[in-house]
């Protein structure tokens, strides 16, 4: 059976302008994306931009096809996705775009945006007073400050530091009731748009009331003189927002 060929096209190069070392980097990333290294081969570089022709032996061709289809929609094995990411980076750095096509039909299997990818917004990190909640699950350290980890459900706040005297107090609450730590954190925005707290210096803390939301709502309802319990409360609140239902 014939091997199945794929062509990786780089629009910024011709065979004579593509540096050998760069070619090696592209091929290494392509191999990572293909997987099945024993049955994926480099055939050659063809003109028409730089077209890297590769061949997958028939025995692994269906597996590679499925892998590439998964990569196209952002799924597939981690290594395959890492290979695609590296190719995107290489293309962007070479001010190029690229495609991976079937050798025979020319059908594009995976398209690469390369230089056209959206540039991530970058913000300088900053510090801000904040608070974090959770259960203390670790505290200690041998340097001048103590370090703690706070667990809030499945989320762990690490890189939390404090004075030793504060740590001594907090140590009594290890695996204890929920607490709120007040202090100053350093925040930075990651490339994927998610904000990350990279450290947190604790000034003080308080022990929290562990009541559930329904129990908290019950407590709010029982507040004497609470006019939110009147019949027109919803429409009145909506009126505060400029809504049209305030008929109070």
């Amino acid at each position, binding site marked *: 059976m014939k091997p199945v060929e794929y062509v990786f096209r780089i629009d910024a190069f011709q065979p004579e302008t593509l540096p050998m070392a760069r070619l090696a980097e592209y091929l290494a990333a392509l191999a990572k994306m293909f997987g099945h290294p024993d049955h994926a081969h480099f055939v050659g570089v063809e003109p028409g931009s730089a077209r890297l022709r590769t061949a997958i032996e028939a025995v692994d061709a269906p597996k590679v096809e499925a892998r590439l289809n998964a990569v196209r929609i952002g799924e597939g094995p981690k290594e395959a996705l890492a290979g695609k990411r590296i190719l995107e980076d290489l293309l962007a750095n070479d001010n190029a775009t690229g495609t991976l096509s079937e050798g025979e039909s020319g059908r594009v299997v995976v398209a690469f945006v390369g230089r056209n990818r959206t540039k991530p917004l970058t913000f300088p990190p900053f510090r801000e007073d904040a608070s974090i909640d959770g259960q203390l699950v670790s505290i200690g350290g041998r340097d001048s400050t103590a370090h703690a980890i706070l667990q809030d459900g499945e989320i762990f706040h690490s890189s939390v530091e404090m004075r030793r005297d504060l740590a001594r107090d907090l140590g009594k609450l290890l695996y204890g009731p929920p607490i709120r730590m007040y202090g100053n954190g350093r925040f930075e925005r990651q490339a994927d748009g998610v904000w990350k707290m990279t450290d947190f210096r604790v000034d003080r803390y308080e022990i929290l*009331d562990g009541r559930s939301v329904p129990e908290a709502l019950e407590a709010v309802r029982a*507040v004497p003189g609470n006019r939110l319990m009147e019949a*027109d*409360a919803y*429409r009145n609140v909506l009126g505060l*927002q400029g809504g049209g239902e305030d008929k109070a």
Partner: protein
Amino acid sequence: MILAVDSSALALLVNPAADPPEDPKTGQPVLHVRERVEHLIAGIGASDTLVIPTPVLAEAMVRAEEGGPGLMEALRGLARAKSSRSTCTLRSRQRR
């Protein structure tokens, strides 16, 4: 689950029996509001969190009038109901 509310949603959570909102399509009161809100509250688990943004809390306190300080006191120091600005901005957390 993290439940973040605006002030009208908070008003209904606190008082599900309040006069219901109007359906903008029909101009008629929305049906079974109390039952719907109570069903929502019944679905909130012990580890779920209610986030009340500071402007929402301010509007609730305006409406609560003399009950405002008591409302603040009832919400103070709760692990599962958060009303400070910082809790809204702290989306960045590290997973193990």
